[in-house]
């Protein structure tokens, strides 16, 4: 599955809720204000663990819009909208943590 999270983990609980329920094979894509959680200092060790496993993506356009490109953790993969489409195609059911 592909889980999308579109809000900052500082503001809302949606990333945490996603992490509480995500299974061992699914991936997470951070979009919109969700990319704030991709910055180095984002406060979830579980997200960091998933990133180490190569299972965390972030929308590059949203990262750049917020001026935090240099802050994104190295093992979070940046994708453009075409990459977003590929993730939807490859990972089956899409779950939005809106």
């Amino acid at each position, binding site marked *: 599955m592909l889980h*999308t999270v*579109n809000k900052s983990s500082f503001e809302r609980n949606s990333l945490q809720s996603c992490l509480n329920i995500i299974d061992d094979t699914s991936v997470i894509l951070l*979009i*919109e*204000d969700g990319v704030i959680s991709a910055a180095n200092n984002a406060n979830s060790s579980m997200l960091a663990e998933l990133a180490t496993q190569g299972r965390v993506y972030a*929308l590059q*356009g949203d990262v750049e819009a917020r001026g935090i490109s240099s802050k994104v953790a190295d093992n979070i993969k940046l994708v*453009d*909208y*075409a990459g*977003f*489409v*590929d993730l*939807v*195609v490859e990972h*089956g*059911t*899409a779950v*939005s943590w*809106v």
Partner: protein
Amino acid sequence: MKISIQINEGPYQHQASDTAYQFAKAAIDKGHEIFRVFFYHDGVNNASRFTLPPQDDRNVVNQWAELGIKNADGEPELVVCIAAALRRGMLDESEASKNGIDGNNIHPAFRISGLGQLIEAGIQSDRLVVFGD
């Protein structure tokens, strides 16, 4: 692949409709079919033909219209939920005249229909992606 989209928020206030548009455009560019875009909740406000954004800003409504998402019969597949639309003052000609309102504001690239169209999109499509607040 057949992909459908659900949009829960209106234009400008939230990025949801912008992201969904960029996603839909990229999917079409990659050769996928956007089976249907279903506008629910405040998402119905994306269908207003009255929208007049500033010159230096994008026109969210026209962007959707220009994608020209239609079915084989040439009907628009930008579908606005009727119940959510009436509640929020989004009317096509037929709903307006049925309810005695002297005006209507749905852009012709969109059509009003029932919630069944969302379920059907889920059934008929390989993927359904939700964009919201």
